[in-house]
């Protein structure tokens, strides 16, 4: 993946020098092993700080709403471009305001899985072909890349950008056959087990709203959970408050989520968030044949009202 870095810097430098964009949103080296940090290049010389690699895990499309009315370039993986398309379909982003530097993605590495697979603190990690080399104080080992990918990346059906102005490198081949493998794991449980699983996951929530803040599609000016008069759900970390938040968040993203996994990566309590949204996405795919963020002119089914669709809602 590192081969994209040079091409990315060159393109960013060109765009900023020409003045055709005011900012290039990408990643810079992180301060910790296995981290990259969202970075905003505003001058041609800033482009030298851009990097690409297996730890560029954030969905940068969430920053585009902060550049309304300005021309921005964005470094985007497959899932990020789907979010951009979904935002455009919802009229949140004019096509001519964003320049997409598309990057074919081989899947991002889950730093939490890596941390659990090694005997101490990870002090350095680098990708070597199909493996990740990990080093700590008293250990050095190699892990197969395929075993340490984020679940949403393992299951991804769109690693290549669905929309771009320039594509860095050749498209990658698909590796996933089933985009909803982690949804099926929960679907296969009994209703009682599912309820227990959901309650246990939600119970760890601390209402930091990192899931919402990391999500490109959570752009409401006022989130239902911040509304105080009337207050829609209990304010505390009670079962009703936490489950109300988790359900409300997931439902508001029905047919709008692109399964990028940004919410789960941001969650400090490692709550299984992707199965909830994945289930809703799977339902919409099965009921309406709809997939979020692949067509610019297609609105999410639940955002469309057709006067003649009848009581079955077009299913």
């Amino acid at each position, binding site marked *: 993946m590192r081969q994209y870095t040079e091409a990315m810097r060159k393109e960013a430098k060109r765009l900023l020098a020409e003045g055709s964009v005011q900012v290039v949103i990408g990643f810079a080296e992180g301060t910790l092993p296995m981290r990259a940090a969202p970075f905003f290049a505003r001058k041609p010389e800033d482009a030298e700080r851009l990097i690409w690699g297996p730890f560029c895990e954030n969905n940068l499309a969430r920053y585009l709403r902060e550049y309304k009315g300005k021309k921005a370039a964005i470094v985007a993986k497959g899932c990020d471009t789907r979010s951009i398309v979904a935002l455009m379909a919802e009229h949140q982003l004019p096509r001519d305001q964003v320049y997409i530097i598309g990057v074919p993605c081989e899947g991002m590495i889950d730093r939490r899985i890596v941390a659990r697979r090694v005997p101490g603190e990870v002090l350095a990690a680098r990708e070597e072909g199909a493996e990740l080399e990990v080093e700590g104080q008293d250990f050095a080992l190699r892990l197969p890349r395929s075993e340490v990918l984020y679940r949403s990346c393992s299951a991804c059906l769109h690693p290549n950008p669905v929309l771009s102005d320039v594509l860095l490198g050749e498209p990658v081949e698909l590796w996933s056959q089933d985009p909803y493998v982690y949804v099926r794991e929960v679907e296969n449980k009994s209703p009682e087990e599912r309820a227990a699983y959901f309650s246990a996951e939600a119970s760890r929530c*601390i209402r930091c709203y990192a899931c919402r803040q990391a999500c490109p599609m959570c752009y409401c000016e006022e989130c239902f959970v*911040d509304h105080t008069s009337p207050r829609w759900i209990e304010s*505390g970390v009670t079962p009703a408050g936490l489950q109300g938040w988790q359900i409300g968040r997931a439902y508001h993203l029905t047919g709008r989520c692109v399964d990028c996994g940004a919410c789960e990566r941001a969650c400090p309590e490692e709550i299984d968030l992707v199965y909830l949204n994945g289930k809703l996405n799977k339902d919409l795919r099965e009921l309406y044949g709809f997939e979020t963020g692949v067509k610019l002119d297609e609105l999410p089914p639940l955002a469309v009202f057709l006067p003649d669709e009848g009581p079955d809602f077009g299913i």
Partner: protein
Amino acid sequence: MRKKIDKAQINTLLAALLKDYELYAPAREAGYVTFRQIRSPEEIVWDCLVTREPPKDVFLPQTEVLFSYTRGPNGLELVSNEKVQRERLVWGMRPCDAQALLVQDVVFDTSKDCDVYFANKRAMTTVVGIGCNQPLSTCFCTAVGGGPFRKDGFDLFLTDLGEAYLAEALTEKGERLLASPFFHASSKADEKAARALEKAALAHLPEAMDVKTIQQHLDQLITSPFWDEVQASCIGCGVCTLLCPVCHCFDIVDEGTAACGQRVRNWDTCQYCVYTLEASGHNPRPSGRERVRQRLMHKFDYYLVTQGKLGCVGCGRCVQLCPVNLDIRQIVNEIGAAT
């Protein structure tokens, strides 16, 4: 007073203490280790330095019912939730988290003002600390005035000597624990070993920050474009503040109906847009710029003025857990250059 306890004896001691205390310790939760109430000593994870959540919930629960009310035939009945029923024991707190607790003491329990809910839990709790033999790369306690073997804030302090723990009582509560027959005499050699461990740990940690200069720089930065750069990547979530052992802001909410209900206190954070939203609709901190600035200013400037202490203890939780790798160490380092 110093004594020693063999590691093989520690679970028996804790099992005995569980009869008298509610016990809080680092324990596994899903895929990580956090500070929570435990019911058996086997649940304790001994080698975790920085728990996912700090132990601040023991003294300031994230959601706390202050009192509840019911309207009955005899009028309004109020039930206060001020006092906890059982004595508490926090086992295995790290020195950074104890420094944070000392900051909270100055907020909630002073000679002038006392938050009875906090003060009661504090009085009912015995705090057992443990030194950090191998600090993590994200630890920076020494940069902000702490240390991996700082003992203030603890009732009893443990040093991991390999096969045994050296235990030092620092208060009467600590003496009470040390009176248990599971502890036996320690030697001069044990104390020497403890000092060597401290020296080795310090070698992994950074030098002290020049706090006075940072504060002077911050005072000049209120209107600086520096904050626009810092906030560019911040997504405005509450991870850094809610999981900070020092941060203690709260919001009080009445929930219920005319017939029954409760007054609830929840943690709040200056990083939320609604934190400073006034009833008029005006928001004095309308954007991320003011909110990230507030976090840094409060920790590295205002606390020094109001309490004579920093609002950061260098535990590194915000560094580890920030979804976008905004690193408070880096921000503080850049403050000088931005001035």
